[in-house]
């Protein structure tokens, strides 16, 4: 089971790296959807079906659809810009492997023995109980987040569209 977790986590990291490293907005949108889909698998295995369903429907489904819709409204790069962009594609990430390697060597060299045993978690069986009764304050917060998002769109995009 442990090797399965490691495998899924590795795929998750690879998907996330693909999402942020690709220069195509469309591929980045698809990468986000794939990353969320892999996360969904992990959530199902970890026995959190409700969170997995939310992740799949909202993060892997709805949000990438909105992103891709917006991306289709943008202008593609000109040929020269695309060539420049392709040239510098991996340039900005050149230190990333070195940083990872350095941290790994440091960790091994210092011989750090971590006490990171995880406790067993008791789960509340009824998610409705959590959402409506225990986390009611957060629901109000969610309403405020939605309102803020709506005003953000109004302020930052609506008038541009009018022009």
């Amino acid at each position, binding site marked *: 089971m442990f090797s399965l977790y490691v495998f899924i986590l590795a795929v998750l990291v690879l998907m996330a790296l693909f999402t942020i490293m690709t220069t195509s907005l469309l591929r980045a949108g698809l990468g986000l959807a794939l990353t969320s889909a892999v996360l969904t698998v992990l959530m199902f295995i970890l026995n959190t079906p409700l969170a997995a369903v939310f992740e799949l429907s909202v993060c892997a489904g709805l949000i990438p659809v909105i992103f891709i819709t917006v991306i289709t409204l943008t202008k593609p790069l000109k040929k020269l810009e695309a060539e420049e962009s392709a040239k510098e594609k991996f340039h900005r990430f050149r230190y990333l492997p070195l940083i990872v390697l350095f941290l790994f060597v440091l960790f091994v060299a210092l011989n750090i023995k971590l006490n990171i045993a995880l406790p067993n978690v008791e789960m509340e069986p009824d998610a409705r109980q959590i959402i409506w009764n225990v*986390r009611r304050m957060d629901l*109000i917060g969610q*309403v405020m987040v939605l309102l803020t998002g709506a005003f953000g769109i109004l302020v930052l995009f609506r008038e541009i569209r009018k022009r």
Partner: protein
Amino acid sequence: MAALFILLPLFLVMLLNLPLKKFMRPIVFWAILAVSCMQLIAVIFYFQEVSQQTLPILASVFNFPLAMDSLTRVMLVGIAMVTISSAMIANSLAGNVERRFNYLNILLIILGGMNGVVLVKDIFSLYVFLEITALSAFILIAFRRDRHSLEGAYKYIVFSSIATVLLLASIALLILFTGDTSFAALSTAIKGQGNQLVVFSIAIFIVGLMIKSGLMPFHGWLPDAYSTAPDSASLLLAGIVTKTVGVYPLIRIVYSVFGFSVPVNNILMFFGAASIVFGAFAALTQADLKRMLAYSSISQVGYIILSLGCGSLLGMAGAVFHIFNHAVFKSTLFANAAAIDSKVSSYDLENLGGLAQKMPVTGTVSALACLSVAGIPPLAGFWSKLIIILALWASNNYFYAVIAVLSSIVTLAYMLTLQRKVFFGKPDAKMQNVTEAKFSVLLPGIILACVMIAVSISFPFLLGTFIIPLKGI
């Protein structure tokens, strides 16, 4: 009843955006003014009643446990005061009717968000309200939608997102270990935990809040965000938002959940002192009025964190008192920047000068605020810095006490530079036709200056009634 501080702004936003906008647009300013003034009056004069009484209608649906102590009280007063100032300036200067309406609606949301941050007693709810405030602040910074403000907003959201990732990861780990999210339960569960993941989660939580506070070396977003935002938004950000989303949670979490310990105190004092020195010297070299004030904020936040790092109750009282004073004098200075911009359309210190003759009210208010920032007696800034230095001395942190005193001299230097370059000397030929700003733009600065003087004069009274009780937060 305290839940009303969160619910009322939310209810008003919904009400104002019913399909009757034509009628609602003219009243949005008065609505925000009314709700902020009610908050101010309720917290100052009826705090006990608001803390203890419940409204039957609310109690059946919104029965959240809320933090209502001296720290919350100071923060709620600061939030209401700065929101009123920001609303007044926005109402006078923010573009056409529709844009003003949108701006004031976001101001209502951020008011509810900040009130939520200071009222909640649950670490996950704290995160939710931090995000509401950060998202609203992002929109306010980008409000002008020009290249610079979008860049400032982008930097803010990137740094804020990094902080969010750290906070969320920390909360997830803490929930895993403690199985609860309330401050009290977390505090009990964390005590005596030797697990390094718990230590790691505490560390990343503190780093996340340091990013939100704009402490050096996590300050990259702050000068750009403050200087490119509209004046009313800069006032709000510098006056209270950064303190509410960064400094306040740091005080609350360190005090109520993690507890003071030698490593935590040392980390706080180191970053606090580094921010004081860096912010002060960086402010000295700025050529832009708002950027100078932004770097000054980094330095002043450093004082607050340094005081918190003492790990003593006196240090905490000094930190909270300085948050309040900073809200007053920094908001005053940004209100003055708005007044100057409305008449001169420039923040360039090299192009300004001699404005005291043309804008005497702005000049006088600015002089008062500058002296208070520098900690000149008997102004309010002096008293809070005195408490901070006494707390450092009492906790045997002599080195940091000396840094705090010496940095005050640098603070005085850059504040006098600001005053000299903007207000002293003969006005340039271009400034001949400049007149004093509109009364509605001047009013927030005048009110805040009066608060500053009132706090300065009534310090002996405040010490017994307001500041000493802070020790028993």
